[in-house]
């Protein structure tokens, strides 16, 4: 039975259909069609689709970042191909994906992104939904927040890389001092995207069960070989991760990032005050917060710090419309709040004079006078 026939039957059976107005009949038919006409459209994932989906279905995972607010961030932050971006987000990787989309071409990302992450490793669940080609991830780096302080104070370990690890004991000593890597490997094991780690764990589990049952000497010998190989694999991986960490630290230490995007569950002030240190002068930064008050504090602290101008605290108001002949009006439900943004531009920080930042603050507050006319600019 086709959906057309079903809908026709429903109309015939309905006792009230005839009495409905033309518009109401239209609405009734549309509703029934939607229910019985099983038409699926396959769409290519994009920031537009994923951000609207996440906001509608899992807003808690993205700190209630509404899609129009995300759109503002991407534009205010001048996200584009060729930038060196610092991204700090706890929105399941949605913001990261959006940034990557705006920086990516057909095969690879132009520029580079350093994702700062809390805890053991970056979450990129939503990022994988974008379907980026593998090469996109070549210019994506990550760095733990827990190392930011040491990096800024200059106490981050910068010892030269060890050669390919041969000594078991040596590696163990090093790995004790670098708990992050171990945590990272644990974290990665929990993530869908790392199959190698899963294989690693499977192999370890296999070893354990084999341990119990092994009686055959030859079997034991082979198992020992496997054991050694697995340990080497782990060592190699740790070495790789450590190498990447040092590389990313070097990128940050250049303090020449083209912009900063923050959208997390954490209080924004400490994040901004520290991460802004890695951004070049005359570059935009945007901070998202679900609530307004933390951004009020952030604004105040940034004024005290200096080195930022054009600070703006804003939110966007979004309204969808139904447009039909003689029936056009805003839609009935509207999003109450999509979060707040604090944006600004960095300038060269004048650390010499202590007065200057206050003077600047006063200057920034003065009402704008009429615009200056320039004689040499021909309009």
């Amino acid at each position, binding site marked *: 039975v086709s959906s057309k026939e079903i809908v026709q039957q429903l109309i015939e059976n309905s006792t009230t259909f005839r009495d409905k107005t033309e518009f109401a009949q239209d609405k009734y038919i549309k509703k029934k069609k939607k229910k019985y006409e099983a038409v699926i459209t396959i769409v290519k994932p994009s920031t537009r689709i994923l951000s609207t989906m996440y906001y509608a279905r899992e807003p808690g995972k993205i700190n209630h970042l509404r899609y129009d607010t995300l759109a503002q961030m991407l534009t205010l932050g001048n996200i*584009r191909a060729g930038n060196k971006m610092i991204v700090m987000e706890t929105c399941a990787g949605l913001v990261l994906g959006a940034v990557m989309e*705006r920086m990516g071409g057909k095969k690879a990302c132009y520029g580079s992104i350093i994702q700062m992450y809390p805890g053991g490793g970056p979450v990129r669940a939503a990022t994988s939904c974008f379907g980026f080609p593998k090469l996109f991830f070549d210019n994506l780096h990550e760095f733990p927040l827990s190392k930011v302080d040491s990096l800024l104070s200059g106490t981050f370990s910068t010892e030269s890389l060890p050669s390919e690890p041969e000594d078991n004991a040596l590696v163990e000593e090093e790995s004790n001092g670098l708990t992050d890597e171990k945590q990272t490997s644990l974290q990665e094991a929990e993530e869908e995207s790392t199959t190698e780690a899963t294989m690693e764990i499977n192999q370890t589990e296999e070893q354990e069960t084999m341990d119990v049952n092994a009686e055959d000497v030859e079997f034991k010998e082979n198992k020992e070989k496997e054991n050694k190989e697995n340990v080497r694999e782990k060592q190699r991986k740790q070495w790789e991760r450590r190498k990447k960490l040092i590389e990313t630290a070097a990128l940050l230490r250049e303090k020449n990032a083209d912009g900063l995007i923050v959208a997390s569950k954490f209080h924004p002030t400490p994040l901004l005050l520290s991460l802004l240190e890695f951004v070049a002068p005359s570059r*935009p930064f945007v901070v998202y917060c679900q609530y307004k008050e933390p951004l009020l504090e952030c604004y*105040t602290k940034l004024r005290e710090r200096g080195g930022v*101008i054009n600070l703006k605290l804003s939110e966007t108001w979004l309204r969808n419309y139904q447009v039909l002949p003689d029936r056009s009006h805003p839609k009935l439900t509207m999003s109450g709040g999509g979060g707040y943004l604090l944006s600004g531009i960095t300038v060269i920080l004048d650390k010499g004079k202590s007065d200057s930042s206050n003077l600047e603050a006063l*200057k920034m507050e003065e009402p704008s006078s009429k615009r200056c006319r*320039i004689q040499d600019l021909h309009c």
Partner: protein
Amino acid sequence: MSFVEYGDTIKDGDTAIVFLGHESMFPVKVQHGTVTQTKYGVIRHSTDLIGKKYGSKVTCSKGGWVFILHPTPELWTMNLPHRTQILYSTDISIITMMLELKPGSIVCESGTGSGSLSHALIRTVAPTGHLYTVEFHQQRAEKAREEFREHGVEHLVTVTNQDVCKNGFGVSNIADAVFLDIPSPWEAIGHAKSALKAEGGRICSFSPCIEQVQRTCLAMEEYGFTEINTLEILLRVYNVRTISLQIPDLGKAAEDNSSAGFDSSNPSNQGSLCANLQQGTAQFKSGVPLREMVGHTGYLTFATKS
């Protein structure tokens, strides 16, 4: 410098933004030997600008100072010379996202107007994409071409001087997205459809009046567009201010022990009040909305070519 790439140092021929203070800035064309007047004094390009880093503080002749900023499409939108009413970054942001624009995208736009949206589109589709922009007014089209040249983006944009409703965009079946900001967009829907790629292309029409929107939606439906959706977006800005409110004098109760009408010993009150309780004021930080805000720019209608 370039509108599609960051540079570190100010060079001869750059367009830079001079920032004087709160919401006060203007663009300047950097040129050897030229001088710029500001309310804080004179800026000499050769000594004060060229060779300095973007983000530097420059002291003017009268002693006051300014900051020199690298141009971005957003700063350009706030400072460009208006030939027409322009689109601001709030609308531009949602347009960019809803049209799914990214590096490599091919976009068609009409009308070019003052080039506010154009600069933003060029920035997003660079380095491998292209903007085909159509402007009906000959002088505006020429002025736009000139600006794109000055800003180092002419290789990413083609300006065509014609009527989009009669002659379309000048390209067929290649655009990932089309944007319309014209008085009668329903007359250009057909041309938009032929400019768009075979399937999946996105279209956006911007109209201030709901009647225009209604006609455009009908036209979109007639031409087989799907996912037709109309929205509007408004920006609310907050000024961060420390506010002091007076505590009212409610007089004294009969007994001497109670404080003047206000129970300051109540722990829940202590948390919310800052200093100055003795002086009878309470201070707090607030995000104060502006007295007047932009109430309406236009309706944005999006659809997909399927």
